[in-house]
């Protein structure tokens, strides 16, 4: 297991190198210019040139790329043009909202997805099955922003139960923080729960066909014991994979939710950075998201071995 971990961690390096190069080239090769955005609509081309010079944006691209590699290797992600602070600090400030949102949404997704998939499989063909699967189909189909805006309209504007948008740090006021998290966590978690429910159902169905389940039933065990004790853990491996992917998606992909609910997280940061062409920030966020994908995948692989003792890494 130890040597496996070392090998996997070493394999992260070439992946990150490729990601760094691709994101650098992509963001620099699309048209647009951070200085023209920052200096505002009435700035003249001469002013813009002078500021580009001051920021080093006029140097040849390869020179900027080499500089970027050099900085990344020393752990320095550069300085944001727009935010007047190091990229690492900008990332750090936005890590908390994104992580809190991710955990809450993941909690909602798993709490809805796994039980409903399992129940649907256990009662295959019943009204339960059809009902739950229809709801999960809706979850896949409904666009996130539409659901979010409707949540805001009904629960905040019409009923006034919850705040419409915003973010309060969980460390400063946990109760208020949760109130602000309810709507975004549900609108994001609901759509993510759909995939988890569908995978849970099909894995469960497969496991329920197995001989040892028939044996368990033949022993006279109750339906509940059969489903939750004998079948559930065996159906978990693919479900954990999906949850792992969902986690990674939530870190980088909660863009729409963060914008609609005005949560100052990584998703909002990357969108505004792209619109402003704040190159160092875009590169930094993408690198962090890529790294978290790789590490979450590694974590999932390790979890397999814990869930299913038959899986070993040597």
């Amino acid at each position: 297991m130890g040597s496996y971990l070392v090998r996997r961690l070493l394999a992260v390096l070439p992946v990150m190198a490729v990601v760094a190069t691709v994101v650098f080239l992509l963001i620099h090769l699309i048209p647009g210019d951070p200085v023209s955005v920052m200096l505002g609509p009435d700035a003249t081309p001469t002013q813009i040139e002078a500021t580009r010079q001051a920021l080093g944006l006029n140097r040849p691209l390869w020179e900027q790329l080499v500089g970027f590699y050099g900085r990344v290797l020393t752990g320095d992600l550069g300085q944001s043009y727009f935010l007047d602070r190091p990229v690492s600090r900008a990332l750090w400030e936005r890590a908390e909202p994104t992580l809190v949102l991710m955990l809450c949404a993941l909690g909602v997704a798993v709490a809805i997805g796994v039980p409903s998939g399992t129940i649907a499989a256990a009662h295959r063909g019943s009204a339960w099955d059809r009902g739950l699967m229809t709801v999960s189909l809706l979850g896949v189909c409904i666009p996130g922003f539409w659901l979010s805006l409707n949540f805001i309209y009904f629960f905040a504007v019409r009923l006034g139960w919850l705040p419409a948008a915003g973010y309060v740090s969980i460390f400063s006021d946990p109760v208020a923080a949760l109130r602000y998290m309810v709507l975004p966590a549900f609108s994001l978690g609901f759509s993510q729960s759909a995939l988890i429910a569908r995978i849970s159902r099909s894995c469960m169905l497969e496991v329920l066909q197995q001989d040892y389940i028939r044996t368990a039933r033949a022993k006279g065990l109750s339906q509940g014991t059969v489903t939750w004790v004998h079948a559930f853990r065996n159906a978990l491996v693919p479900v954990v994979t999906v949850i792992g992917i969902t986690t990674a998606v939530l870190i980088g992909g909660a863009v729409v939710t963060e914008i609609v609910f005005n949560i100052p997280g990584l998703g909002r940061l990357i969108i505004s950075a792209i619109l402003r062409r704040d190159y160092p920030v875009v590169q930094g966020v993408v690198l962090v998201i890529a790294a978290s994908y790789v590490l979450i995948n590694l974590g999932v692989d390790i979890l397999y071995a814990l869930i299913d003792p038959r899986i070993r890494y040597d």
Partner: protein
Amino acid sequence: MRRSVPARLTWLVMIAILVVAGGVALAADTPRKGGVIRVGNLGEPPSLDAHWTTASITETLTNHIYEGLYSLDNSNKPIPMLAEGVTISKDGLVYTFKLRQGVKFHNGKEMTSEDVVASLARWGKQSVYGKALFAQVADWKALDKYTVEMKLKEKSAIVLISLAVPNNFGAIYPKEIAEKSPPEQKVTEYIGTGPFKLAEWKPDQYIRMVRFDEYKSRNEKPNGYGGGKTAYVDEIRWIPVPEVATRVAQVETGELDFADDLNLDAYDRLKTNASARAIVSKPYYWLVAVMNKKEGLMTNQKLRQAWQAAIDIEPIMKNVAGGKPEFYRMDSSLAPVEIAAWHTNLQGLPWNEHNRDKAKRLLQEAGYKKEPIRFMTTQEYKWMYDFALLTKQQLEDIGFAIDLQVVDWATLVKRRNNPKEYDVFTTGIGAFYDPTHAVFLTPSWPGWTTDEDIQRIQSELARETDPKKRMALWEQQTRQFYEKVPVIRYGDLFGLRAARTTVRDFNEKTERVRFYNVWLEK
């Protein structure tokens, strides 16, 4: 005749009721101190250095922190702010400014002439307006602690107005800060003399400005952007809310007290809400198609005239304004009605002619052979995209070939600096307070208006100091504009803001929002 006792009693009771009710009404209208006003705006400022950028969000924010020597009154004319006043020599070449005494910076230091000299010298190297002014300055120095002197190379009409414009403005910083950052680099400390001081800036979360207790207000009444300023609210909290639907919802729920730059379709919904109020903001922009006069097809004046003759502006404006007549205005004056000093009422201008025959004739005279015209716009500002799309339809009807290029804003503002990359682009022209500040008439701004006659009148406008003669020149310039067609002027579009009804004494007449003199009802 003597009144009976019961009648007199009734009178007494009625008077008593009136007095009490009047007192209550008076109390409800008396400004009170306290509270936090939460303002939703659409994003982060690129900087809080007023000298550095022309971005409107920076203009709005920084005008609460800093002040300049002059400001604009409610008719958009210059009035003294940090200056006590000015004496101008007979030949018009020497301006001697007396500064107000005892004005403190947020760091406790008194503002004196050395701060003014250092700040405006920096502003004169970076700001669009500062550069234009300092191109005419021969000498700029402090005479004593409270007096500064500006010597000009030639007579100028734009000294005071340039010091008064709120955008990219001549904010006075402490000398140490002004001298620390070279003009092309943003300052990193934000110290001014304004009624609010910066308390905290958390990008994407909020910018907090708190009352500056030692603020020394002018004695006059509030007047436009200037006059007396009182910080009634304890704090202004600027909250960036990029999603416009969320901004509206948060005003409706009371999570925000004020929201700027809303979509016009929120107007009807706001009108039905008892605790929120819709505010039509004007002036906002007149829509403009800017022609590239340096290279390519649109260097052909006849082709530009054909475009101007072809378009039918009213349906375009109506559509852009979502069918609501409250949100657009048909006007050919280059300065909006709200800038009364420069608004013109000229008859017979070839504006909004929608004359197909004339347009077709001009196309023929231009020798135009359906070469595609690259017309660049963006969906980031919906109104730009809408008017570009409708223009394309109208122009293609009479024989133009329009290649509509929809890009994001960052691409548009980059490409428009390169004459090889486009023929026409969309943007909006906001308020300008002097004809010499109209960017679309300058040779340096994208589109490059280098026409000799236009430039000659612009330089005369910069030199001429007699207001009547200046107005005559401006009218002459307007006629030149419609003949030479450096850009195409469409109609005026208005913006939408929303405030909770508890927000009191907000000045609706200024182009950008100001929250000094605004107070919150309990």
